[in-house]
């Protein structure tokens, strides 16, 4: 394979809180190829969104910072790039859509103005050209009657339509990477399916790589080629989606998968009881300790797990799991 589009190596992000400095992302590495779809999975607070924000250079100022590691986009180091350069990249080459379509659009401008704004800022289009382009984009994200809806205010649209507008805005400058931070969490199920269809089609047409952040295993199975399971700011398991679902090499992944009813039903004929992952996520104070952070919830726990942080075990099918017992699973 040629050089990856995005290469994240040993990324460590520290948050400064009242309790002190905690690594919310600890030694995370992954690569994203051209046109690839990679998914981040994990519970709330495990650092999925932080990873996305750090790629965009939007970590909360004064609170979060990249302590070490590198993020390379097209071979260009982003962690040390100037704010000017990052601003050029944001929205133009890497763009992002957010979880809450209801609040992600500015209520005082029409959706057309908001899409046109991005085009004018990055592509230097004229007002008229940007407006026409905005109408075309709305049509591309399948908003019916796009020509007249382009002058609508966000409050005149439904949640699903607003998320489409967000996608149109994110794709306006034909970015290389689209980061979708739980794009369908706030939408109902039928609309979710439509948004996934749309993202899949757009990806096929434009070749944009997608980083999707979600906690919906179904969405991952449907959308992504590779997935990263994160737990407490650390990589738990990474690899091709079908391989991981077929044979998870980390007890946490296993737990997550058995939490989803329809995947289990598809894989096996007999009916399992729906399981849960017992216990709760460790608090921020626990982050960064030199032991397996999942140990307290794990039924395979041995002394080893409490003594030292497990190293990554690599398997020949491309799967990589940070677990002392990965081979046994």
């Amino acid at each position, binding site marked *: 394979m040629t050089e990856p589009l995005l290469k994240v190596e040993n990324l460590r992000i520290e948050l400064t809180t009242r309790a002190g400095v905690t690594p919310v992302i600890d030694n995370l590495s992954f690569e994203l190829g051209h046109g690839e779809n990679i998914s981040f999975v994990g519970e709330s607070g495990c650092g999925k969104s932080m990873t996305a924000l750090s790629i965009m250079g939007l970590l909360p100022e004064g609170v979060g910072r990249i302590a070490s590691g590198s993020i390379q986009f097209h071979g260009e180091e982003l962690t040390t790039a100037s704010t000017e350069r990052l601003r050029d990249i944001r929205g*133009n080459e890497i763009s992002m859509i957010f979880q809450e379509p209801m609040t992600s659009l500015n209520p005082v401008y029409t959706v057309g103005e908001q899409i046109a704004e991005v085009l004018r800022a990055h592509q230097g289009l004229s007002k008229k050209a940007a407006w026409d382009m905005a109408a075309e984009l709305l049509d591309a994200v399948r908003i019916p009657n796009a020509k007249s809806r382009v002058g609508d205010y966000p409050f005149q649209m439904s949640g699903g339509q607003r998320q489409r507008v*967000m996608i149109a805005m994110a794709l306006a400058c034909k970015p290389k990477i689209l980061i979708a931070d739980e794009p369908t969490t706030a939408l109902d199920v039928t609309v979710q399916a439509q948004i996934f269809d749309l993202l899949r089609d757009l990806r096929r047409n434009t070749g944009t790589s997608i980083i999707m952040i979600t906690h919906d295993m179904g969405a991952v199975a449907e959308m992504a080629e590779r997935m990263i399971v994160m737990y407490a700011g650390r990589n738990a398991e990474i690899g091709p989606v079908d391989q991981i679902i077929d044979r998870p090499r980390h007890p946490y992944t296993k737990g997550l998968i058995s939490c989803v009813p329809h995947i289990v039903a598809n894989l096996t004929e007999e009916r399992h009881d729906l399981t849960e992952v017992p216990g709760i996520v460790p608090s921020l104070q626990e982050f960064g300790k030199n032991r397996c952070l999942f140990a307290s919830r794990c039924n395979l726990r041995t002394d080893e797990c409490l003594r030292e942080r497990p190293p990554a075990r690599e398997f020949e099918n491309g799967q990589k799991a940070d677990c002392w017992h990965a081979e046994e699973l």
Partner: protein
Amino acid sequence: MSDPVTVLEEEIEKARHPFTEAWEMFRRNHAALVALVVLTGVVIMAIIGPALYGRDPYDMVWTPFTRPGENWDFILGTDYLGRDLLAMIISGTRVSIIIGLAAAFVSVFIGVTVGALVGFYRGWVEEVLMRFTEFFQVLPTLLFSMVIVALFGASLPMIVLAIGVVSWTAVARITRAEFLRIRELEYVTASRASGARNGKLMFRVILPNALPPIIVQSALMVGSAILFEAGLAFLGLTDPNVVSWGQIIGSNRTYFLDASFTVTIPGVAIFVTVLCISLVGDGLNDALNPKLRAR
């Protein structure tokens, strides 16, 4: 076009437009509606009144202290120099309104700039500018503006500046509070993620959303600026070459016991105008404050 469903949809969309909705809410406040009508009359008077009522407010036209109704040529009577009070009130309207608007503009301009910088950048900018704001807040306002006018001369621009400089702190605090709230909202992050610059984020993204309370405050500011000017003029700190309501009261105050109407009439003009401005401000608050919408 004639399809009834399309027509209905268009009607619904029209009715839901923010401005339409704000107007609906404003209209429900009857006091504000009446006040708006009166205020419109006052503004029209300020604009065309002097041309319509040709008499020079500085001309000594009749016996001093003619009571209202004594002579129908001078409906509101004459002051201590025998000048027509109605002519003075009319030309005073223009000055008072201009001072009110200009001083409110100055204070909103300073207040929004400071509040926006503080609310957006936080950190040391906030520390420095908020101490600066607090410094202005604890100054005795009337005394401070008197000092400014006494030092730099009692011209109209100086009076406007003096009033503006002592009254911007409230606007700054409101703007800061709105910025602190809005900067954390998702659409601001979304704009940032699409590569917007700080200047654009501040004035194109956040400010338009922060406007409603600022508009209400500015409306009230116009009223308090008129009052403030009247206070300064009463103390004689005003441009002697222009007639303003406060100045009429100030120059006639010595004769208050003998000819109270010379003070009462401009007083009523100030009272009515400031009351109307406050009521309109209240109506704007109803119209623009989403928390009151449910009522």
